[in-house]
């Protein structure tokens, strides 16, 4: 199978899995999930995956740890979040910061 077809397969599988999870939530009786630990662990799994993705996207390049313009860019994004900027502004601020630093040879 070509890499392109494999990517399509992954897109469809991820979509099917996520829809099945959503639908299951609407179909199971509510009392099945009254254990507060289930909700807590699910919430922490979300936090851990997103935080890990922040780390990996900021300081890795392939198998290497790399410190580059992405770090100041992420700091600017954090400041924007503290200032309650809309998401699109946060993302743009980070992109512009990294682009500027690189254009200056950083």
């Amino acid at each position: 199978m070509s890499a392109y077809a494999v990517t399509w397969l992954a897109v469809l599988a991820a979509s099917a899995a996520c829809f099945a999870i959503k639908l299951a939530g609407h179909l199971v009786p509510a009392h099945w999930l009254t254990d507060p630990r289930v909700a807590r662990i699910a919430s922490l799994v979300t936090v851990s995956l997103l935080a890990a993705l922040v780390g990996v996207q900021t300081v890795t390049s392939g198998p290497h740890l790399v410190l580059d313009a992405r770090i100041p860019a992420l700091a600017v994004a954090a400041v924007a979040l503290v200032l309650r900027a809309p998401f699109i502004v946060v993302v743009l601020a980070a992109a512009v910061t990294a682009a500027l630093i690189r254009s200056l040879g950083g």
Partner: protein
Amino acid sequence: MAGPRDPHVDSAVKQALSVSIATGLYGISFGALATVAGLDLAQTAALSLLLFSGGSQFAFIGVVGSGGSPVAAVTTAALLGVRNGLYGVQVAPLISTSWLLRPLAAQLTIDESTAVATAHREPAAVRAGFWWTGIGVFVLWNLFTMVGALVGNALGDPRRYGLDAAAAAAFLALVWPRLAGRLAQVVAGAAVLVALALTPFTPPGVPVLAAAGVAVLIGTAVPGASTAPATPTAPSDAT
């Protein structure tokens, strides 16, 4: 829906529209980053239409873009989608929709629709908040995904425009509203450390999945109930 001038419904609809616009615009960054990660226009559109959950979508392209296996990409996206299942358990009795509409309601069950729906008490306002937000975000998210994908295709080298940093910022913005509690902060810190420590030694995609294991370990081991439920904290959460 209730009568034409129910103030609770009015306020729910207003909130739904502002959340839809804010979230929809975020779709631009998803579309651009998806094409940068190597997906074509149709694949990018399919993710927003069929998967329709921002966190899972960004995670999927993040893993694919960093060379992770398709299995790792699907698993990460599905794990991030688990919270939508818990939202469904919460909102299903509140919106009490017919069996026919249930698949549609399920597809629209995301951070934003759940947050706006559960922010209201009046049953009519809860239903209006859920449907207006769900449909509003769906339409605008898909529209702006396409805009972003076209922009991303036109840009060329992603590093020159800082799009790699934009991806990191997107994940930071997604996790930010969830870092209110001390336990969440500890888990986030541990997750970053584990992921980075594993990066030189494991295939791409594995470090992020291993971080989920950290959450399960800490969540199981730490007693007490002082953490927030799975409900999104603010209606401005990303998808």
